[in-house]
C-alpha cells in the first residue's frame, strides 16, 4: 500500500513539494519575521526592537519615514536607475553575444560558452578590486583614457584624470561586467531553441537579414529577454558590495541603506521597512507581468 503510494504519487509529490518546503523555511518564514520587525519599535534592548508595552503594538513610523526622509527615496531612485542601466547595457551587449553563440559551430560554441562563465571561477571580490585598480586615477587604464580625452577635446576642457571611481558610472560598469553572464545564458538557451528554417522562410518571403531579426528572431526571444532582464535587474537593484566599493557614497543604493540601518544605526525596524518596500517594488511589476501574461494566454486559448 505504502510502497505503491510511494511508487506512483509519492515521488512526484516529493519532487514538487521539496522546493516549496525549502522556500517556506528559508524564504517565507524569514520574510515574515522581517515584515513583523518592520512594524516594531526601535529599543535599546537586545534584539533592538519591541512590540507593545510603552511602544505601540504596530508602529508605522518606519514606513512613514520612507516617504518623509528623501534619503530613502533618493536611494530607491539611484538603485532602480543603476539597475535599469545595467540591465539595458547587459541586454545590448549580451544579445549579440548570445545570438552569435547560436551561429558558430558546435565545437567553438562550447569553448565560447566556457569563456562566458569563466569569470565565475575567480572570487567576485577579487574581480571588483581589479576594476578598482583599473579605474583608479593612477592606473594605466585611466591614464590612457585621460590622454585620449585631452587629445580629442579643446584645451580648455583638459582634465588631470578621468573621474571614474566613486560614481554611478563605475557602479553600472562593474555591475554590467558582473551580471553579463546572467543575461547571456538564458538568452542563449532561448535563441538556441529557435528553428533556423523560420529565418529562411522569412528571407524567402522577401525580408532582408535585419527584417528577419526584427520580425522573427526578436519576438520569439522575448521570454529570454525577460528572464535575463530579471536575473540582472533584481540582484543589481539590491546590490551592496559593488556600490560600497566603487560607488558614490553621497548617493547610496538601497542595499547600502539597509545594511547601514541594520548595523551602524541599529535601527532594525527601519531596515526591515526598507527591505519590505524594496521587495514590493521588485515583486509588484513581476506579478503584474505574470498576471498579464496568464490573461493573454487564456484569451488566446479561448479564441
Amino acid at each position: 500500500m505504502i510502497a505503491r503510494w510511494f511508487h506512483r504519487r509519492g515521488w512526484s509529490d516529493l519532487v514538487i513539494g521539496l522546493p516549496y518546503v525549502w522556500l517556506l523555511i528559508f524564504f517565507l518564514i524569514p520574510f515574515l519575521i522581517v515584515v513583523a520587525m518592520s512594524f516594531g519599535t526601535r529599543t535599546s534592548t537586545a534584539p533592538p526592537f519591541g512590540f507593545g508595552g510603552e511602544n505601540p503594538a504596530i508602529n508605522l513610523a518606519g514606513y512613514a519615514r520612507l516617504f518623509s526622509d528623501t534619503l530613502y527615496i533618493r536611494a530607491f531612485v539611484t538603485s532602480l536607475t543603476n539597475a535599469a542601466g545595467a540591465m539595458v547595457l547587459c541586454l545590448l551587449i549580451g544579445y549579440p553575444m548570445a545570438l552569435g553563440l547560436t551561429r558558430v559551430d558546435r565545437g567553438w560554441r562550447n569553448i565560447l560558452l566556457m569563456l562566458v562563465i569563466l569569470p565565475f571561477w575567480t572570487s567576485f571580490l577579487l574581480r571588483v578590486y581589479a576594476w578598482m585598480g583599473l579605474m583608479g586615477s593612477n592606473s594605466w587604464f585611466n591614464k590612457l583614457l585621460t590622454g585620449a580625452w585631452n587629445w580629442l577635446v579643446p584645451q580648455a576642457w583638459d582634465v588631470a584624470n578621468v573621474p571614474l571611481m566613486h560614481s554611478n558610472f563605475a557602479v553600472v560598469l562593474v555591475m554590467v561586467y558582473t551580471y553579463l553572464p546572467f543575461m547571456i545564458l538564458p538568452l542563449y538557451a532561448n535563441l538556441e531553441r529557435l528553428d533556423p528554417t523560420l529565418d529562411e522562410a522569412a528571407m524567402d518571403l522577401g525580408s532582408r537579414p535585419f527584417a528577419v531579426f526584427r520580425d522573427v528572431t526578436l519576438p520569439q526571444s522575448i521570454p529570454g529577454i525577460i528572464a535575463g532582464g530579471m536575473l540582472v535587474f533584481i540582484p543589481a537593484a539590491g546590490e551592496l558590495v559593488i556600490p560600497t566599493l566603487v560607488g558614490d557614497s553621497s548617493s547610496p543604493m538601497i542595499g547600502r541603506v539597509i545594511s547601514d540601518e541594520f548595523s551602524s544605526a541599529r535601527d532594525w525596524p527601519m531596515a526591515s521597512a526598507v527591505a519590505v518596500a524594496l521587495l514590493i517594488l521588485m515583486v509588484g511589476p513581476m506579478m503584474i507581468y505574470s498576471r498579464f501574461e496568464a490573461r493573454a494566454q487564456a484569451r488566446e486559448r479561448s479564441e
Partner: protein
Amino acid sequence: MTQALVRIEGVSKSFGSFQAVKNVSLQIEKGEIFSLLGGSGCGKTTLLRMLAGFEAPTQGRIFIDGVDMAAVPPWERPVHMMFQSYALFPHMSVEKNVGYGLKHEAMSPADRKARVREMLELVQLTPFATRKPHQISGGQRQRVALARALARQPKLLLLDEPLAALDKKLREHTQFELMSIQERTGVTFIVVTHDQEEAMTLSDRIAVMDQGVVRQVGRPGAVYEFPNSKFVANFLGSINAFEASVTALGDQISVDVPALGQSVQARAVGGLIVGQNVTMALRPEKITIHRTPVEGDNVLAGEIKDLAYFGKDSLYRVALPSGALVSVHAVNAARASDDDRLADWYDKVWLSFDPSSVLLLTD
C-alpha cells in the same frame, strides 16, 4: 517556342568532399508542375535550396526568367518555397503568416487585407484567420504554408515534400487540391517528393534523381513506359528484369534470356548490336496469365508460387522451370469466389506478353 522559366545549367553542389548534386541540367516551362523524384539523400532538397538561394551552387548556373541568379539573394528572388516542416511563424496568427510576404510589396493596407482574404479563401481557411499555428491541425498548417507562399504571386513555387506529413486519405485529397490551385493561379510548381505515385498524379513532368544525378526527365507516362535505365524502371513501379543478350536484329529484336531458358521477341529499337548484353525488363501488369497452353512467341510456362490478393487486383509470383520468378499483376475484373479465381497456389499457368511491352535497357 517560349523561353523556359527555369534553366539549370550544369549545376553541382559539394559539401566538403561530398558531392550532393552532380552536374544537373534542367529546363522547366512556365505553368508546369515539375516533380523531382528520388530516394532519400539524393539531393532533391539541396537542388531546391539552390533555386531558393539558400545554397550557392559549387558549379553551374541557374536562370529564372532569363536572369542569372548567382548574385541574387533569397529575398530578391521571384521564388517562394513551401518548407518540408512548413516553417510557419509560431508567434503570428494564420492571417499574419499569410500576409507576411506582402509587407514588402508596395500596396495599400486595404489591398493587402483583401489579398490575404483571397488567399485564405483559396485554401479554405477563412474561419481560422486569427488562430496561431499551434491551434490548427497539420493539414490546415500545410494549407497556411501554401497560402503564405502563394500570396506574393511568385513566378515559381518550390514545394519540399508538401504532403509527406499528411495521412494517406488527406494526401490524396490535397494532391488534387494542389493541382486545382496550380491551375487557378498559373504559378509554376517544382515539387520534391520521394513518393512515385504522388509524382505521377501531380506532375506534368518528372525528373528522376539518383545520388545527385538526374537519370531521366519526361512526362509521367513516358518515364514509366520508356525508362532509360534499370534504376528508373525499378524506382517507378516494379519490374521483372533479367540479363539478356541480343541474338538477332530486324523487324523485331530477338534476345536470349538465360534465366528464362528461352529467347524473347522485342519491338525493334535502335542502337543495339548483335551480341550486346542488355537487361530485358517487363512490367508485371503487361503480362497475361492463361490457365491453358497458348501458342506463339513470348510465352512462358510456369507454376504459381505465391499470390497476394489486394481486392481490385492481385499479384502473382510465377516460378519458371529454370527457377526464375516472374511477377504478374492482374486486375480482378470478374467477381470470383475463393475456389474459382483466375489461378491458385501451385496451379500450372502460361504467361504471354506482347513484344512491344518488352524493354531492352542498356544502362
